[in-house]
């Protein structure tokens, strides 16, 4: 599951922000800001992608580089949101 999340995120970033430049060699820990991969619209695109792909809600307070500035950070963040969500769903479905 985690691997699949990571791959989808990596795929989105490579295609949408790097336009395939640099191929599959994207370092999972590399800062997207430092690499210039993401601009101001890019943040909004990324959030939209995460919300629609993983069915999560990204809170304003969550939009910080700590959560979103590398493939690994995004994957960790999404994983955390999904686990909270699944608990909530279980709770909801009582």
């Amino acid at each position, binding site marked *: 599951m985690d691997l699949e999340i990571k791959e989808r995120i990596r795929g989105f970033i490579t295609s*949408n922000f790097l*336009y395939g430049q640099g191929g599959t060699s994207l370092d999972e820990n590399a800062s997207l800001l430092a690499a*210039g991969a993401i601009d101001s619209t890019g*943040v909004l695109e990324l959030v939209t992608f995460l919300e629609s792909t993983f069915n999560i809600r990204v809170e304003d307070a969550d*939009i910080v580089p700590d959560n979103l500035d590398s493939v690994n950070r995004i994957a960790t963040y999404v994983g955390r949101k999904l686990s909270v969500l699944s608990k909530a769903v279980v709770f909801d479905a009582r």
Partner: protein
Amino acid sequence: MCGIAGFFGCLPQTYPPREIMRRMLAVLSHRGPDGQGLHLDEGGGLGHTRLSIIDLAGGQQPMSNEDDTVWVTFNGEIFNYVELQEDLAKRGHKFRTRSDTEVIVHMYEERGLACVEAFNGDFAFALWDKRKNRLVLARDRMGVRPLYYTHRGALIFASEMKALFQVPGVQPEIDPIALDQCFTFWFPLAPRTPFRDIQELPPGHILIAESGSVSVSSYWELRYPVGSENSDLPAPTEKQMAEELEALLIDATRIRLRADVPVGAYLSGGLDSSVVTALIRLFTASRLKTFSVGFEAEEFDETKYQQEVVEALATDHESITCTHGDIGRIFPEVIWHAERPILRTAPAPLYQLSALVRQNEFKVVLTGEGADEVLAGYDIFKEAKVRRFWARQPRSSWRPLLLRRLYPYLADVQGQPQAYLQAFFGTALDRPADPFFSHLPRWSMTSRIKAFFSQDLRQTIGGYDALEELRQRLPAEYNAWHPLSQAQYLEAAHLLPGYILSSQGDRVSMAHAVEGRFPFLDHRVVEFAARIPPRLKLKGLKEKHILRRSIGRYLPNAIAERPKQPYRAPDSQSFLGPCIPEYVEDLLSKQALLRTGYFEPRSVQKLLDKCRRQGTVGFRDNMAVVGILSVQLLDHLFVRGKEAIAPAPALSTTV
């Protein structure tokens, strides 16, 4: 206002010089539809396509002095020609016409090469002194009028590069270093042009060709005071400065109304064009004709503000509405005229606007161009000020929030979480002494587009560093200038001639034989404005403060106090929206990209897919689409499809 072309020395023998000159003038006919003139003699030729504005009957060119030993072909205006002519006549010079052209010839006789210093105007001319067997090329201080040249045995020159390409042996080939510069600064650094071995005479320079040697030198440079704010003399008060600025602007406008044809004005709805319009009304009894462009897309449209000015200043107003479809359709014509890559579509609506002016049978318009450069109106100045303030306390969390106040019209920036706002605008925060501190965010964002360059192009460019080249050329005292002066210099001495006055100015207005005149770029205004203390130009975060204090009283308060709204037009949507022009598909196809070899087809494809999928995209993606398409068009029109460099393409623009 006109087109000029010519040569000095021996042309390649393939065709008779007369035929070559005929072809050069034919591609400049849009600049001068009212007539053509040619002067050929042993060792040279001067040609002219005329747009008659001053001395309609007597102003034919090329023109000579009393004994035909000095000849000139001239594009532009010497606005102070009336005063100069009186003075020269007193000194015994005989004038055959009332034209400003003849003043050039006689002033040259009187003062030699220093004649340019006497001229207040927008000019590009070639002067052939047969006694000394020398050719002089000269260009105005701010770079309003264009002049290009190349050496092919002879020195060959013209108002536009397309005329040079008419000479056998002058093959257009795109210069990779120029591409690197365009995708850094938005323009090639003069004298470099987008084409190999073609030079631009830089603004404020003269070229002298004589006895086989050619020298180029500067006669005027934009300079700012060093340590301006702690001089021993009592500093002029704000009120005194405002009054002097007002007097200069009034005179700059007065002499720019000199014409034997009616003069109109552009109205953007903003402060600068409103100021110019208000000043014109001080001198004209009749209703002034004004022109503006509006946009179908609301985010770019300023019609509401334009109407406000029209009502307040009672002008006779004409406007057009620009749609996404219009921009996509006319873009190839715009690139044909601009002759360089562009990164935004903003020149296209101005191309439509000049067509509207022409339809109304006007040849001359005054505009507010230049005010943002000389009086500090652009957002980049405020942005740099905030970043500098923030750099003093980099850990401050509220200082960067001031950035939101800079861009009230950009939803992106408004909605941006603080942490990201800091990341985007934090460029070079640790290097406040960097000479390019103000421009690094813009240039580094633009440079990202180079990621689309093909492997080949990247290899050719190698380790070339555009910023380093510009750094080497900065004036010696640059580092001692106030930071605002440094940023203003980069805008006024580089972006202004390299992009604003060329792609977005002369080339798109002269495409329809319309001459723009710019009171804010009168060199007296420019020199005075450079001496105004920075705190009076950008007061706090209020731009063009001194202008509001000086001329504001001629305007309704709502207009005088309006914050600047940058002029923008729809970018990638113009090409990838619902109706995609056929040439876009053709030129951005994998085959076309492989054939030209500048860009990596796979990456471009991903970019296009994204833009189509998402509709709206950010700055960088927009710039990438427009930049890539314009390079492909440049190649198509000039390099590959040489047949396209024919006399002006059918001007299919409908307004």
